[in-house]
């Protein structure tokens, strides 16, 4: 029986759990804190951008942790549905070019989830602020 649970993919370093009740506005490129997925078989990513300031783009990509060194590198896996690379110049989570405004119900799928831990990375260009939320619906097939 599968066991699914939801994790927050937008929590950045320094944000406390109690402050996750609201989406965080990001003004610069950055990344989430490390998300450990040691019991996870698949991940479904959900993106909602609720507000933007100015004009520009924001693109999301996935980095994977090397457990031997602790460093993060570009995840070489592909979206299980679209086949798009999750981290590359021509790929990314959700879409390949990024987003220019608010959006909702955007999905991406990692199946199987090979890595120990990941970070969601975002690159902001032009926008002065982007408010978004990313959730991970993680699935343990042996649950």
């Amino acid at each position, binding site marked *: 029986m599968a066991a699914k*649970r939801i994790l927050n993919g937008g929590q950045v370093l320094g944000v406390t759990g109690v402050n996750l009740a609201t989406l965080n506005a990001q003004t610069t490129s950055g990344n989430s804190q490390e998300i450990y997925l*040691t019991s996870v078989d698949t991940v479904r990513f959900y993106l909602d951008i609720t507000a933007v300031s100015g004009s520009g783009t924001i693109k999301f990509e996935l980095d994977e942790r090397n*457990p031997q060194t602790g460093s993060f590198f570009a995840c070489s896996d592909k979206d299980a549905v679209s086949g798009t690379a999750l981290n590359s110049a021509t790929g990314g989570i959700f879409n390949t070019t990024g987003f220019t405004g608010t959006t909702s119900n955007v999905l991406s799928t990692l199946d199987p989830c090979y890595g120990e831990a990941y970070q969601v990375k975002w690159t902001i260009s032009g926008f002065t602020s982007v408010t978004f939320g990313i959730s991970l619906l993680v699935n343990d097939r042996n649950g």
Partner: protein
Amino acid sequence: MGVLDAPPAPYAPAIVTPVRYPITGRVLFVENATPHLRQGGMFNDGCGSASPDYNVLFNGYPTLRLDPQGNTTSSSTNSQQLTLGGSPQTLTAASSASFVTTSAQTGSPTVDTGGGYIVLNTPSSSGSWQTTSGNSAVLSYTSAVVSGTANNWTVTFSGTKLVVLPGSPDTSITTANIGTATCIVNNPNPHAGNSPNTSGTVTKRRIDDEYTGRFGNAMWFRPTSKSSASANTALISVSLYNRDGTNQNAARMMFQLAIGMNPASNWNNDNTLLWYLDNAAPIGGAQRYVPFAFTTKNAMSQHSWDPVGGSWDDAGVWRYVKVRADFSVTQYIDITVDGTVYSSMAGRSMVSISSTGAKSMHFSMEYAQTSGTRRFINLGKVVGTAE
């Protein structure tokens, strides 16, 4: 055979119940990280992460890895370093001596003049030992006077004596290296603060309760990564706290890590000084944390599991803590660390501060760091009890 006679042998002898089992109280919940749940039933309300760890198991279950992920804290409020002054002197539990210290800082030293504690934490270099024995020690004093001018302060403590805490190696000390050796007064640096320190991990289970009575918070933890129990940089504390909409009442114990002793073994990070958070101890506004024991025969930060650092020991060494408090009178009952029950805090008021946070009973463990060096500890089998 009468009904009151013992049954004939062979029969099972009386069992001495192990201290580390939550023998007191009624179990309210047991939290283990499981494959089915992200954090057992617990939540990290601070920074960093509390994530299931399938490399470090306890009680047959995955554990929670508490990892500030590089977030740092600077909880050094009301901690004052001074330099030993005067002349070498011998102090015992029966002393009531004058104890002279100095400071070359610009501003006046902050010292609780109404009484408190002085910690002599032995550094590794014998040329800076505060005592001839080379062991750390805790002193208490009844009053203090600060005199002098900028960069030339003298703090004179009165009624000073040696506090022979459980685990203290010495019943008498003689001070040494006057003019260079240092001591700390008021709180340890760093310390775990009055409120849960959300600059690190604050991993908790909440239940509602109307300050009805006695509770216990028991858990096992392991300093997992290399140097996860380093001196002056890692903060490990265990708490029970509730709020009534206006105030927060908290029972909290913390480990001061890597206390110096002689001989300084290869495992010198093992030695700890244990503190509990008092409401106002003994007098005045600066002192909050009270030392209650040394542990020198227990491991701390040994046998690491830290692949990045090249350590692969997934068995590790686990420590047990249980904090018990009576919320109907907002007082401590006792604190168990490993195999020993400490009761010097029994009847002492847990700290009370203004707080409009969540009105619920919290069972938590906190892990924070003053250094951005990546470190983590693991938490297993958290048992909440009604006592």
